[in-house]
């Protein structure tokens, strides 16, 4: 009944997910209400997670949802709520300074150009490899085997950051 030789269901799903991601990202920038921006960020992150799932990187997708959409975004929303002292719909206005416009525009154009160039000039060979079945196990072996020192160092770094944050927040008692 349907013939999708060039345009498969997979592509349709990708377009939908990509659309949600880009719309979410645009929302983060364009919404005047910063709470809306923060919630748009959740949708962007969910979209990214969905792309991971589609690329057969389920573990990464789940972690993306768990950490970014579930925890980091909540942290952002909390921070925003704590810092809001203005009317909600005027919290994320575009800047009025021309210098900032110029700087932001330049960075955007440069990044877009580099991404387009990278995509355009790369060769995209088709692999015959199937998606790995046990991506979790392989990840674990890499993280706790080959890169264990980097992994543990990152863990210690985060721990130090947490302790530092607590000290900054509560202060040190002088005895």
């Amino acid at each position, binding site marked *: 009944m349907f013939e999708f030789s060039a345009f498969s269901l997979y592509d349709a799903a990708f377009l939908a997910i990509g659309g949600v991601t880009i719309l979410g990202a645009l929302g983060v920038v364009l919404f005047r209400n910063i709470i809306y921006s923060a*919630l748009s960020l959740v949708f962007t992150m969910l979209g990214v997670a969905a792309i991971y799932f589609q690329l057969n990187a389920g573990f990464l997708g789940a972690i993306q*949802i768990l950490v970014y959409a*579930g925890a980091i975004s*909540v942290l952002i929303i909390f921070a925003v*709520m704590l810092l809001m002292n203005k009317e909600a719909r005027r919290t994320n206005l575009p800047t009025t300074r021309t210098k900032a416009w110029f700087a932001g525009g330049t960075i955007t154009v440069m990044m877009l150009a580099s991404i387009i160039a990278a995509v355009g000039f790369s060769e995209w060979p088709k692999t015959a490899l199937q998606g790995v079945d046990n991506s979790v196990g392989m990840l674990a072996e890499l993280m706790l085997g080959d890169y264990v020192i980097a992994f543990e160092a990152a863990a210690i770094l985060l721990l130090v950051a947490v302790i530092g944050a607590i000290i900054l927040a509560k202060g040190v008692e002088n005895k």
Partner: protein
Amino acid sequence: MEHLFTNLATALTGWMITLGLSPVWADVILLLVKWIIIITIITLNIIILIWLERKVSAFFQERLGPNRLGPFGIFQTIADAIKLLTKEDIVPSAADKLIFKTAPMFFIVVAVMLYTVIPMGQGMEVINLNIGLLFFISMGSLSTIALLMAGWGSDNKWSLMGAVRSVAQMISYEIPLAFSLLGVVMISGSLNLQDIVAAQDNIWFVILQPIAFLTYFIAATAELNRGPFDMPEAEQELTGGAYTEYTGMRWALFFLAEYTNLVAVSALMATVFLGGWQGPWLPSWLWIIIKTYGVILVFFWVKWTFPRIRMDHLMSFSWKVLVPVSLGNILLTGAGIYFCQWMGWC
């Protein structure tokens, strides 16, 4: 009986292919059918569950519970549902209307997503995901966003207070929840729920992992915002927490999602610790239902026994007791597995 539903699914796919659909589209339609079935089951299930909770709580308090509508008051929830559907939908004028209206939808969608990976029987799941358990936990963490949206959108101090409480509580208890499941994952060596069920062929994980079972139960109670950890709703102090401003069907959606979460968490508990759909004599899909309802009854029992505890106690219990205990359990499990391999038992 055992293969009733799987056979039905195969027959449906075959029928669609004979109609001229390509196998991919047949799969997509089958997936949609599965979703519709799941949503129907959830809705019907919840009608029964609400009735059951009211009845069980009444029995705990030596009351009769609903007993007017139909035999044993079984139609009471249906009447309530009709009442909620016909109630006026009030959106507070000061509320952030977009967020206020999206929050219940987000909540119920996230709650229904949990059912994607739960094996409802032998070969019966929507998607046989490799990382099913992780997917379940990550989807569960998303409901905090919905509650935060509801609390913020209502523009009401009680709503916001409830939302903040529930977010703090859910994020804190996600850690012991995930850690408690880690012991099971270590033994079974997989995050796939069907594999975990298969690993319980000889012995249920509740016997191998009693500490993880308890930790999971406590953390799940807190994740569900159920009594005795129902501070986010706290009718007495917060007049309903994040749901304070909601009326009619929007409120009903929250209610629905809470019970959906309850069933999902109970089903996961039955799957991970109580042998899933495995069991003698009866078909597998009946076993998972029986076990899930057993776990739900225990949740009811706990809710209607213990009084609500204080918020700071709850938080310190999570960070100072549950997290170390679940970490210790992981250590113990690792040592056990190592010892087992060293002795050559497994």
